[in-house]
């Protein structure tokens, strides 16, 4: 009866808030108000108060200890009493402890369910954090599942992507080439990267593309990149033709796309070009950017309103989704204001149709391929001065518009260069260290041993390491006691060096 009183109170609490309705059942049961029941309810209340103070369920412990001897009597009673014993046995399992399934196997030999109704502990393992091996394994599973999805729903027989990039050594080369490299590294198909370098093969370019992990072909082109944009475009066209000759010589099989080093490619582009049969065209977004901040002053209010959101270059389709013409860049607003030399701070304009917007099946370039269509001219017969790959075609109407007929912009064209006389550290590694170092007022790293060099040579050759350390950490301001001492040490180092150099 005591247990049923407990149960009652629990049921009452649960049922009053449960589903927001007054259950008809509980009214009948709470009619039992004998003194014993009241006494136990009061005792329960007192224990609740104690446990509020002490912080754990004291009352249930008491009940457990009081009734541990008599639980054996309850084993034979029907199932519902069993649930309350299970309650009490489980009561010791305070939620935040790691807990094993309560030891009640002996009780479960009855026909009733192995699954016990009632309060269970919340099982938490000792270290509820991700296990690195499991995470790696999970990622392998995800990768395998995605590969299977691609096999089933993606491109049926993916072809190699042959990317052609003309480049030359300059300040922004590292920036642009790394961008293209990272895009190519993410492509889920095989990639062959043909990098044509103006001015001969150099170590800088070679070291950048060596990090790519894709198959690269580094081709040298023995002319230096000129300083004017127009001549640069012409030279780049020649470099690309050179790359196409490489494709022809090595009989590379795949889809040739032109990845200029300052362009930005979206990953969808590589999926879309797999759909090309022979010769395709995609839409490019042109980011005609002016070098200076005076763009707003150049454009009057009306011009700004007339200008469309972003100019697009690419195939134009008619209503029946067939190629009808070409969208080209409207350079009229920029007449006279565009950049001529690479240094100019004016807007750099693209050509009428950029090479980057075209993709070519490499078999079109092979000599003597059996199923080559007859509208393609031979590579040698076009000469060196072609503006866009359309000159390779006898009939431009066979071009396939890609990206839902040119409606999707899959890559963006941008030309940003530093001044031609700008210097940059070779390989972007500062070696030897910069000539002038100024210690910050708060040198935060007291652990560097205060070395007083005897000779200037020793100073210069001392692991530039320590100097580098102080330099790189100077930005953090950690207030420490030895601060002033450190500053003094660095000062002496620098002063000896200076004296040495003088």
């Amino acid at each position: 009866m005591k247990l049923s009183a407990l149960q009652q109170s629990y049921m009452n609490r649960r049922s009053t808030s449960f589903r927001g309705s007054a259950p008809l059942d509980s009214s009948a049961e709470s009619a039992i108000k004998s003194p014993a029941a009241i006494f136990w309810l009061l005792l329960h209340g007192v224990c609740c108060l104690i446990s509020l103070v002490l912080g754990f369920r004291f009352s249930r412990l008491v009940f457990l200890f009081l009734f541990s001897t008599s639980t054996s009597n309850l084993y034979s009673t029907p199932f519902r009493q069993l649930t309350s014993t299970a309650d009490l046995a489980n009561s010791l399992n305070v939620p935040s402890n790691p807990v094993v399934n309560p030891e009640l196997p002996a009780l479960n030999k009855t026909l009733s369910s192995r699954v016990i109704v009632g309060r269970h502990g919340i099982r938490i393992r000792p270290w509820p954090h991700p296990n690195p091996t499991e995470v790696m394994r999970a990622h392998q599973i995800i990768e395998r599942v995605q590969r299977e999805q691609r096999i089933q729903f993606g491109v049926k027989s993916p072809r190699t992507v042959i990317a052609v990039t003309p480049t030359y050594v300059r300040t922004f080369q590292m920036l642009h080439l790394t961008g293209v490299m990272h895009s190519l590294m993410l492509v889920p198909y095989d990639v062959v990267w043909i990098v044509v370098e103006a001015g001969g093969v150099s170590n800088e370019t070679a070291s950048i593309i060596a990090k790519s992990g894709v198959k690269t072909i580094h081709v040298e082109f023995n002319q230096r990149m000129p300083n004017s944009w127009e001549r640069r475009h012409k030279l780049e066209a020649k470099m690309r033709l050179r790359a196409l000759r490489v494709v022809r010589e090595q009989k590379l099989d795949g889809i040739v796309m032109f990845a200029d080093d300052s362009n930005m490619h979206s990953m969808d582009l590589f999926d879309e070009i797999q759909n090309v049969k022979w010769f395709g065209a995609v839409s490019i977004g042109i980011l005609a950017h002016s070098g200076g901040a005076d763009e707003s002053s150049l454009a009057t209010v009306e011009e700004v309103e007339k200008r469309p959101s972003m100019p697009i270059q690419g195939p134009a389709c008619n209503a029946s989704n067939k190629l009808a013409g070409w969208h080209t860049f409207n350079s009229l607003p920029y007449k006279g204001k565009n950049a001529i030399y690479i240094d100019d701070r004016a807007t750099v304009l693209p050509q009428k149709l950029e090479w980057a917007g075209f993709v070519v099946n490499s078999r079109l370039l092979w000599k003597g391929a059996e199923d080559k269509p007859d509208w393609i001219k031979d590579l040698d017969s076009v000469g060196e001065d072609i503006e866009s790959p359309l000159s390779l075609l006898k009939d431009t109407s066979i071009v396939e518009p890609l990206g839902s007929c040119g409606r999707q912009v899959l890559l963006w064209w941008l030309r940003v260069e530093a001044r031609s006389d700008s210097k940059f550290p070779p390989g972007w590694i500062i070696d030897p260290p910069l000539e002038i170092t100024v210690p910050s007022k708060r040198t935060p790293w007291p652990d560097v041993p205060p070395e007083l060099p005897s000779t200037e040579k020793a100073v210069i050759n001392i692991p530039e390491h320590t100097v580098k350390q102080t330099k790189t950490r100077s930005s953090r301001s950690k207030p420490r006691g030895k601060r002033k001492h450190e500053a003094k040490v660095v000062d002496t180092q620098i002063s000896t060096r200076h004296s040495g150099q003088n």
Partner: protein
Amino acid sequence: MRVSMWVLVLLFIFGFNHRIFAHQRPRTERISGSAGDVLEDDPVGRLKVYVYELPSKYNKKLLQKDPRCLTYMFAAEIFIHRFLLSSPVRTLNPDEADWFYTPIYTTCDLTPTGMPLPFKSPRMMRSAIQLISTNWPYWNRTDGADHFFVVPHDFGACFHYQEEKAIKRGILPLLQRATLVQTFGQRNHVCLNEGSIIIPPYAPPKKMQARQIPPDTPRSIFVYFRGLFYDVNNDPEGGYYARGARAAVWENFKNNALFDISTEHPTTYYEDMQRAIFCLCPLGWAPWSPRLVEAVVFGCIPVIIADDIVLPFADAIPWEDIGVFVAEEDVPNLDIILTSIPTDVILRKQRLLANPSMKRAMQFPQPAQSGDAFHQILNGLARKLPHDNKIFLKPGEKVLNWTAGPVGDLKPW
């Protein structure tokens, strides 16, 4: 000789074509259940069902009072009634019927928030049975053994939402011999009669169809779950709700980036399920949940955390091959369990889930299509035929006790 050569050539050509075209279809696998390929069986012609004409206070009036009954997860009882009325298995001649159906909507009594109240259901059922036993002789002939009822509520015919109370009540005594079509299924539980047919809870098929995303969207979520871990209104400290299993999932994996679990209800719930590899289907207050249906429809492998649960159409669908079963005590090791499944097993499960017959079997589409849940119920009923002659009572014999059960149930409705 020549004929056989031509036959061989033809077979070769067909085989070749099949190989070419098979490459283009998404790869699925045939589902062979423990009873054979029964998902595709056609029940028409194998059984006859007679639908009793009950006064509309048992069905239509309830629906008119509250049309929400058509959209919540217990709506199966209404749709089964509508399906049977126009189905070819229906017969108007009760003498040739194998099964008798009573159209009574026991769960259509809703609170303002949409939760069904089962308190009047026993009385309603009792009054309906009294009606059919007095107006037709078929109930008394077998004491209901060839009748079936749809009771999709939390604990089936125990008619209560709290498990302890439901167990105390047990199945309504009058329904002891009838076949129960219910969503609740747990082995060795009082509220599951042997021979009951377990059906999936109702999930709106049109809504699920409308939210499909392209199948080549890569599945990038490892484990997905949205729902309560602690039922703060009824069981704030945890341990009662879901027998502590949901709380254990939260406490163990809330810091794990592989587990996308939370209580928020996003608008992209269906789309997210299609981007997940595993979807957790833990028990709540009752072991079943519509998540299983959603996981199957969206191709996400269901991870079922409910001890001793009996899943829908378990004799036709090989759930062990399709889903992953995790015991409640193994929840802290859930990540190890899931990552140690071999990849080819996972791919096979996904192929089985991609099978359209599997998805159809879990849904209640309107109008009914072949192979859907309605037909699986009829298949299940057909598999129980022919009735054993022992169910027919001798005249004057009575098995059921009409006065058993709580006193409150005996009041007329």
